[in-house]
């Protein structure tokens, strides 16, 4: 559905996207993740035809974005990070406005508007000014506006940033419905629990795609074992382990410790070390890796060195800058 072929995008002296090649199949929910400045937003902007590639090509449904951007715009819906709703217009006025901008067919408009209002749970708020909607409702309205011309491809740039957990769940329920209707979705998100819901995830770093696979595979092939433990002195327990052999990363979440180690046998040595240091750590156990673990491992120095040495346990060999 979307074909990216050796895409490079350069701004002045910064190379935002570097030689990116990626094919996204019809019906995928493709998640683009990566640290700030990795090139995710630029990639979406090029697909959306808002920007031209410096070199390389992008096509959507076989149409080249550079050669026929108007035709591409008919197919895609693009929701940027700061989607510009009109604060002084009501919900329904905003929808009608965007329908005009996107040239959605007038004949079916009333029916489509009604359907999208219902879909976004905004029917009872249709007369409310957009500025009086909560953050989560504004995002849902922006999504509805993006759908007014029935796009077959949806590009969403961090649609849930700054949205509370309840609204975030509701937003993803909407995306699931859209997905089930066969729309191809490309989404960027800083929430890795959201990335778990994607059919495939691409991890970008400094303009390059350094890993790309299903969440299940990325999790299964992290090349590390995840240990969890509880401690009232979690921070001390963490400091004591940071430089230990075989420990790749340690993080604390309240009284919970999460350690990535190179192999499960390390557990006994770790427990002994905590005991020797007089730190009470309980309930040490091996748990299932999360996408966040894969993310952290791929992006920390350790992870980078390891992946290079073993010539990558993840889809693509990494060629990260030193």
């Amino acid at each position, binding site marked *: 559905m979307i074909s990216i072929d050796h895409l490079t995008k350069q701004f002045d002296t*910064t190379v935002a996207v570097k030689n990116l090649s990626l094919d996204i199949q019809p019906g995928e929910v493709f998640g683009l*993740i*990566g*640290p*700030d*400045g*990795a090139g995710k937003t630029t990639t979406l902007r090029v697909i959306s035809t808002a920007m031209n590639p410096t070199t390389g090509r992008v096509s959507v449904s076989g149409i080249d974005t550079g050669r026929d951007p108007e035709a591409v715009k008919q197919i895609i819906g693009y929701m940027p*990070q700061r989607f510009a709703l009109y604060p002084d217009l009501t919900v329904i006025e905003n929808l009608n406005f965007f329908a005009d901008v996107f040239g959605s067919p007038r004949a079916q408009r009333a029916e489509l508007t009604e359907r999208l209002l219902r879909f976004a749970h905004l029917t009872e708020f249709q007369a409310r000014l957009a500025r009086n909607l*909560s*953050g*989560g409702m504004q995002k849902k309205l922006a999504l509805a506006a993006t759908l007014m011309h029935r796009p077959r491809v949806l590009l969403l740039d*961090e649609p849930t*940033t*700054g*949205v*509370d*957990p*309840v*609204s*975030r*769940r509701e937003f*993803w329920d909407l995306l*699931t419905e859209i*997905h*089930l209707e066969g729309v191809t979705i490309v989404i960027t998100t*800083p*929430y*890795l*629990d959201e990335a*778990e*819901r994607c059919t495939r995830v691409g991890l970008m770093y400094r303009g390059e795609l350094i890993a790309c696979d299903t*969440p*299940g595979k990325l999790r299964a092939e992290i090349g590390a074992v995840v240990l969890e433990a509880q401690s009232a002195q979690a*921070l001390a327990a963490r400091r004591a382990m940071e430089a230990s052999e075989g420990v790749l990363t340690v*993080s*604390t*979440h*309240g*009284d*919970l410790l999460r350690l990535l180690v190179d192999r499960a046998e390390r557990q006994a040595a770790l427990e002994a070390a905590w005991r020797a240091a007089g730190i009470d750590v309980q309930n040490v156990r091996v748990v299932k890796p*999360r*996408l*966040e673990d894969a*993310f*952290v491992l791929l*992006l*920390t120095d350790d992870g980078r060195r390891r992946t290079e040495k073993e010539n990558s346990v993840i889809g693509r060999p990494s060629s990260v800058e030193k």
Partner: protein
Amino acid sequence: MDSNPISLFTENLTKHFDHFTAVDNVSLAVHRGEIYGLLGPNGAGKTTTIRMLLGLLSPTSGRGAVLGFDIVKEAEEIRKRVGYVSQKFSLYSDLTVAENFNFYGGVYGITRQTLALRRAEILRLVGLDGQDDTRVANLAGGSRQRLALACALSHQPEFLFLDEPTAGVDPLSRRALWDLIYDLAARGTSILVTTHYMDEAENCHRLAFIYQGRLVAEGTPHEMKEQAMAAQVVEIDCDNVDAALAALRAASQDAPPGHLFDEVALYGSLIHAIGAHAAEHIPRAREILEAKGVSVSSAEPIVPSLEDVFIARLRSIDSTNH
């Protein structure tokens, strides 16, 4: 922590806007060196509370003090001694990192000499060392947040207000930022933080849930999970989660109230089924899923996550309201 002196308190703090009560009788206390998390959906009153504590907005009724200064009568004294990072902290995008830091330090009346000394240390602390001459326009979102924090630290505040400091920040930078928050707290800085990331909320020493302007629950993350939630959570690991989710939701809707699950939600790649007697319904859930051809690898009761608690709280308040 409770034995430390109180650095902030409010007593029945209330704010009305026209006919709308944004903050409703909120009483809370933050001790020195404590990381206190304020959670709640968009529009719950978190930011309004912070604005009153900073003396930017005067309360309709109630009172409060920060570092011993009254929020109404001595707001000037408070602002001199606290740091504040808002959701939309204004950095000057045409200025460099160093220039922004110096500008904010200047506003707080710090001499150039002292600033030059502190700048190196603080920029290193927030992970922006070596970026002194980078223009803010060229910084990614997460780096801007860290610069905003650096600017708020230039006068070495005793109290730090962080309003969604990690919105849109990638997981690695979030960890780095939280390590920094821990360090500051360990040195005696008191911190009031709002966030929509429930895994971050786990990092707080104490939490308050705010909903519709009211403080509806307060405690340590542990207490919140143990006490604030009457319902049980069953975690289900299975394939084809979209179908599984739909099947469990449909069955729960068809069952008489309380006879299956009140809430079925996706949690990363796992399903959380929540209800007063959720654990008893595990065999029934397995039957439902197997009938749909979903293969279940595990289904077990778990300690609820803070996100489960958060959503259950809000749902129960909503259902008593209606």
